[in-house]
């Protein structure tokens, strides 16, 4: 199977978590870009192309859900994979309803994340 590769943005305010996810994705051959907050992601250099978003739900400042809503509002089709340490079924339902590739609870197995990214990139490349 041909391996899809696109840049994955990791928006995570926990530095260690963000770093580990970026390492994991790198090890699987995905270029990554890390952002400590939703605001930082939105304010990124728009020249960089992002193909998939790994987004922490519980961000300080603008939350992951709010970012998802905003991206949808501006017509972005960026596939989103939520990762969270929260156990909040309401948030999860909201995220799924708004349309996300996966909703992963930390700590999650690497395979779940990689599969989700692969399916995200696949859907994006369709």
């Amino acid at each position, binding site marked *: 199977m041909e391996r899809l590769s696109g840049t994955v943005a990791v928006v995570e305010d*926990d530095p*260690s*978590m963000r*770093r*580990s*996810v970026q*390492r*994991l994705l*790198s*090890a*699987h051959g995905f270029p990554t870009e890390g952002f400590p907050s939703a605001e930082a992601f939105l304010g990124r250099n728009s020249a960089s192309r992002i193909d998939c978003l790994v987004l922490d739900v*519980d961000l*300080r400042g603008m939350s992951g859900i709010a970012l998802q809503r905003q991206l949808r509002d501006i017509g972005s089709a960026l596939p989103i994979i939520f*990762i969270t*340490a*929260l*156990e*909040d079924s309401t948030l999860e339902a909201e995220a799924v309803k708004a349309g996300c590739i996966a909703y992963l*609870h*930390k*700590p*999650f*197995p*690497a395979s779940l*994340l990689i599969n989700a990214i692969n399916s995200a990139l696949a859907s994006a490349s369709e």
Partner: protein
Amino acid sequence: MVRDWKVRSSRFAQNSFAFCCLCLVIFMAAPAVSMEIVGRVPRILILYPYDERIAATTAAGEGVRTRLLEATEGKIDIFSEFLDLSRFPETTHKEKMAHFLTDKYAERRPDVVVALGEESASFIVTNRNSIAPGARILVTGFSSGTARDMRLPSDVVGVFNEYDITKTFELARGLQPQARHLFIIGGSADFDRSWLATARAELADLAKNYETTYLEDLTIDEFVERAAHFPPDSIVLVLTIFKDHAGRNFIPREAIKQISATASAPFYGPYPTYIDYGIVGGNMVTFEALGIAVANLALDAVAGRPIANVDAPQTYIADARQLKRWGLSESDLPPGTVQWFMQRTLWEQHWLAILATLAVIVAQGAVIAGLLVERRRRRAAELESRGRLLELVHLNQSATAGALTASIAHELYQPLGAIRSNAEAAELLLQGDAPDLKLIKQILVDIKDDDQRAGDIIARLRGLLKKRKEIDWKEFDLNEVISSAIQILGPEAKRRNIVISSRATEELRVRADRVHIQQVILNLATNAMDAMLDVAPTDRRLVFQSRLTKESKVELSITDTGCGIPGEKLVGIFDAFYTTKPSGTGLGLPIAQMIVETYAGKIWADNSPDGGAVFRFDLPLARNG
């Protein structure tokens, strides 16, 4: 040798004794002599018949002296003269003595002369006009019969000692109600015989009920022999033995001592001098009593009151040791009997003191017991209330932990998630041909750090849930506890978009249980966080500020940006079950208050000028040493 004065005096009176029959003879009171003593204290001259070593007269004289000094509070002159007429009975000695005393008292004529014994009485009656003109003459130490026989002038007044053998017998009968035999012992001297005759007459009626034997005309050895074989139910009355049948002279009490030593029944006698010489007791006149009675006459005379002859008070006297020897009960003694040589028990001697002491001890004991019980109750109550407080605090801790579970779990999942991703990344890297060992090493460092992070979170959680059975007193910096509380609250604050800031100046040492103080902070902070639910997320701020006050108190203020506390609720805000939120237990603030007060601090609430509420508490600054 000291001889028995009383017996002696009786002996001197033996010729008259037969006539007197011990009946009461009262001299008519002499016409009251007006005795006016102006500008000086009264003078009393006591005349002793013998020298100062004769115990009987000395005892009587001391009785006089003691009574006079006591009654006049020392405002009296008492003179004593020892005439020594026993060893110097010659007329020339008496004349010289009279001259001497006449000269001696020329400037200090006595107002009253107390003559002890017949010799003294005769001497002063003969020489009164030269030695003590105008003085009242008082006599004592002999019977009224003797006095009559001496033909004393009518203005001489005396205290006479009479002997009533029936009273002595009454004492014996009381002690020995079962007695069937009566023995009366008397010597062979004229005086002894007269005593026996008197006794026969006096005892005639009473003796009818007894098998009565008069032991007379016996030698001392015969007395001893007979006495050793008296039936046990015998009463033995001893009179006097100045001479036995063999013509041997005795001091009566010595003879009686010898006879009674091996006797088989108790002896009784009429003279106090017999006590300690083998008799159980009798009805007697003591020398002290004589002295006191004659002193009373002297006092009356000095005061110008009329005086008349009196009989010396008679007393029942018993020897406690003899009562014990014969197994006689002191309860059978006539009322008012004086017991000599009484080995009284501690209780009998000091019953009042013992009772008082016991009462004091019992009272003290009761007070002490009461105090102990009270203290124990108070301690129990304190422990109970402290136990309840600790229990309550623990419930409060659990509630806090429960409320923070979500954020704590979130907090914990972060490092766990990072560890998992890092581990899987490293695993994948190692499968490659040329693993980036530098990266792998970096991953391992991160894993280690995240593991530490997770461990710290669990440790904080445990600290939060730590249950105390006793207060764990420690001295610590309040700022450390504030930091730890902020760490616990951090995730929850983050979840609620609350920005926590902390301003601390210096180290603030307090002495308390840090888990409890942390709970106070958590309660105040969660209360503040709950108050900011309706505030715009960007305006949610929680500020911790600690400082040392001018009063050397460590104070922490927690300020929120909520809606503040309505003025009317500021007062009751620490009351139990006061709650503004639907989910609150209403116990957070009262428990915080209880804890703070347990550590001698106080807690209060206020509104900040910027609109939020400020909760403050203070604690005493811990001082080293």
